[in-house]
C-alpha cells in the first residue's frame, strides 16, 4: 500500500467512524425529544402516555379560564367539541390566548389526566388555527363552518 493510499484509508476510516457516531447520537436525541400531539378525545380515552412530554390542544372553552388570586397559576379547559381536557399553567399566557381560540400546550399529563403545561402556544395571527387543532376538530366532526379556519385549513395537503 502506498503511503498516499494509507493516508486516504485513514481519512476514510475516521470519517466513517465519525459519521456513524453522529448518526447514532442524532437518532437517539431525536427519539428522546419528539412530542406527539394528542386531541382531547384521545386523552380522555386514555390513549396518551403519562410518562413523556406530549402536546395537546383544542379550542379554549368559554368561561373555563380560572386564575389563582395569588400567583400566575391558571387553569382552563380545551375542547375538540367532543371531549374536554383541563390544562394548568403557571407562566404568562401568550398575547393571543383567548377563550374560544385554538391553542396548543406542551407538557405532561398528571394522574387526574390534566395536562401540566410547560409551554402554551397561540399563534401570532388572528386568522390562524394550529393545524393539529383544526385536524382534531375535523376528526371530531366539529369544525365550525363559519370559521375562517375552516376555509384556510380545508385542504388536506398538510
Amino acid at each position: 500500500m502506498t503511503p498516499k493510499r494509507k493516508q486516504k484509508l485513514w481519512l476514510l476510516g475516521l470519517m466513517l467512524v465519525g459519521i456513524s457516531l453522529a448518526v447514532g447520537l442524532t437518532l437517539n436525541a431525536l427519539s428522546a425529544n419528539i412530542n406527539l400531539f394528542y386531541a382531547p378525545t384521545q386523552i380522555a380515552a386514555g390513549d396518551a402516555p403519562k410518562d413523556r412530554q406530549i402536546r395537546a390542544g383544542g379550542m379554549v372553552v368559554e368561561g373555563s379560564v380560572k386564575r389563582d388570586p395569588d400567583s400566575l397559576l391558571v387553569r382552563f379547559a380545551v375542547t375538540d367539541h367532543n371531549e374536554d381536557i383541563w390544562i394548568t399553567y403557571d407562566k404568562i399566557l401568550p398575547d393571543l390566548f383567548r377563550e374560544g381560540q385554538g391553542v396548543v400546550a406542551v407538557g405532561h399529563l398528571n394522574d387526574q389526566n390534566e395536562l401540566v403545561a410547560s409551554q402554551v402556544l397561540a399563534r401570532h395571527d388572528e386568522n390562524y388555527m394550529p393545524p393539529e387543532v383544526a385536524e382534531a376538530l375535523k376528526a371530531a366532526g366539529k369544525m365550525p363552518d363559519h370559521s375562517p379556519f375552516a376555509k384556510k385549513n380545508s385542504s388536506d395537503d398538510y
Partner: protein
Amino acid sequence: MDILYLPELGQFALILALVMASVQALMPLAGSMTRQPLWLAYAQPAAWAQFALLTVSFAFLTASFLVDDFSVAYVANNSNSALPWYYKFSAVWGAHEGSLLLWLWILAGWTFAVSLSKGLPVEVLARVLSVLGFVSIGMMLFVILTSNPFDRYLPRIPTDGADLNPLLQDPGLIFHPPMLYMGYVGFAVTFAFALAALWSGKLDTAWARWSRPWTSVAWAFLTAGIALGSWWAYYELGWGGWWFWDPVENASLLPWLLGTALMHTLAVTEKRGLFKSWTVLLAIATFSTSLLGFFLVRSGVLNSVHAFANDPDRGLFLLMLLGATIGLSLLVYALRVPTLKARASYSLISKDVFLLANNVILVVATLTVLLGTVYPLIMDALNLGKISVGPPYFNALFVPQMLLLGVFMGLGPLTDWKSMRLDKLRKKIWLAGAITLVLGFAVLPWVYDGSWNLWVALGLTLVLWIVTTTFRDMWETSRTKKGWKGITLSRWGMYGGHLGAALIVLGVTMVSNYGEERDVRMAIGEPVTVKGYEFTLVSLGEREGPNFSADTAVVEMRNPNGRLQRTFRPEKRMYHVRGMPMTQVSIDWGPLKDIYVAMGEPVADDAYAMRIHYKPFVRWIWWGSFIAGLAAILAVMDRRYRIRVPEASGDKLTQARQAD
C-alpha cells in the same frame, strides 16, 4: 389620474423583466451550443434591462403603498392610512407577494453587479449570467403565476387597509428581510459560478478565486440578517429569547452553515487546487438549501411564527422549482465531475485536512438541523402522527458539534498548507493551549458566581482557544519582513471572523448558563427580587398611540443597596385595525447584562403578570455576528481579488484535466 395605473405598469415591467431574463438565460446557452460567440454578448445588456425593469416594478409597488392605493389587494391587506410612512415603505416586503418582488429585485441587483465585474472572460461571464437568468425565470414565473403583488380588489375597493401586522411595525423589519435576502440570493451567484464552471469543464483555481468574494459578501449579509432577526425577536416578541430553534430560523441556518463551509473549502480549492468536486457540490447545496428554506417558509408546510399565508398551488410550484434546480444541477455535476482529477497531495497534519474537518462538521451540523426541521413534516406526510421536535434535540447535538468545530478553528490558521511536522505545530500551540486550559477550564468559570459548571468551562475554554490561537497567528505573521503590514486584508478578515465567532460563543455561554427568566405576578407596591435586584410596580396606566391603545406600567428597579437604579416603562399595546395585542418591552441594556421587563396580562385590578429577565452578555451574540460579517467584507477588499490573473493559471499543481 395617471398614478392609478402604476400597478398595471408595475406588472407590465415585471413581465418585460421575465422576457429579459429569458434572453439572458437562453442566448448564451444557444450561443455556446451553436458556437455563435456574438450571442454570448446578449447576456450583459439583458441583465441590465432586467435590473432596470425590476427596479421600476418595485418602485411602482412602493409608490402604491405610499399613496395608499387600497385597490391593490396586497396594499389593502398589508397597509393602512394611519401607518407612518416608513412602515408603509417597509410594508412593501411585509408579506408574501411583496417580499418575493424584493427577492427578485435583489437577484437582479446581484446579477447586475456580476455583469459589471472586471477581469472575467467573456464566455465565463455569459455562462454565469445565463445560469442566473434561469434562476430568475423560475422565481419570476412563480411570482407572476401564483403570487402577483399587483392584483386589484375590484370593483369594491376597500376604504382603508387591513394594516401591517403589528409585529412587523418595527425598525427591525425595515432591515431584517432585505439583509437576509441579500444573503440567500447572493448564494445564487456562487451557484451560478459553480454551474458555469461545470458547464465549461474548466474547474480551476481561477473559478474558486472568482467565487470567493461573492460567497463572502453573501455570507456577510446572511450573517447580519440572521443576527438582526434574532435581535428583533428578542425585543419584539416579548419572550426574551434570542434563538428558538423555530423551523423558519432553522431554514436560515441551513444555508448559513453550508455557506460557512463553502467559504473555507473555496480557500482550499483556490490555494491548493484540492477538493474541487466537493466545493462545487457545496456551492450547489448552499443555494439549494436557500431555496429549500424558501419552500419551507412559503408553502405553508411549516408550523411556525413566521410562516406566510398558505396556498397549496404555491407549495407545489416551489417544490417543482426546488426539484428542478437540485435535479438539473446534480445532473450536470454527475456528468462533469468524474473528469476532474487533483494531483496535489497533502498529509494528515495540514491546513487542508483541518479545513476538510471543518467542512465535515459543518455538513453534519447542517444535516442535524435539517433532520430536526423536516422530520415532523415527513412523519405527517406519512400519516404517522403530528409531532414536533423540541429544542433539547437541537441543543444536545448542535452544541457539541460547535465545540468540536471550535477546536479546528484554533488549529486551522496555525497550520501550514500541504503538510506540517507535528513538533512544529506543537511548538506553535502549546502556549495558547496551556493558557486556554488553565484560564478557561479552571479559573474563569469560577469568576461569575463562584461555582464551577461544565458547560461554562467548555464554552470559555473554547472562547479562549480561538482568541489565543488567533493572536498567536497574528503575532507570528507580523514577525515576517513586512511586519504588521504584511498581514493581508483577507487574513484580517479571517481573524475578525474567528474573533466574532468567539464573541458569539461567549455570549451564548453566559446567557444560557447565568441568565434568569422569571414570570411573576406583580401587584402595585409589592417588591419582587430577581438576581438580587428589587423590582417594584409603581403604577399602571393607559395611553393612546397613533394606531393603538396601550396599558402602561412603571416598574422601578433598585440595586442590592436599595438605590433606585432604573425605571422601566413597558407597554401592552392593542392595535386597533387587526385587534392584535403586542408586547412593548422595556430593556436596560449594557455590555455585561440586559435587564428585560415585559408585561404579560392583567391578573387583577392592581396587578399584572410580568416577565423579568436577567440576560448577561446577550448582546455579544449580535455584536459577534456583526463583527464576523464585517470581517467577511474586509476579506473581500483584499487586493488580490482585483488583480487580473492571466487565463489558464500557470499553477502546475492544480491544472485539472478537462472534459474536452
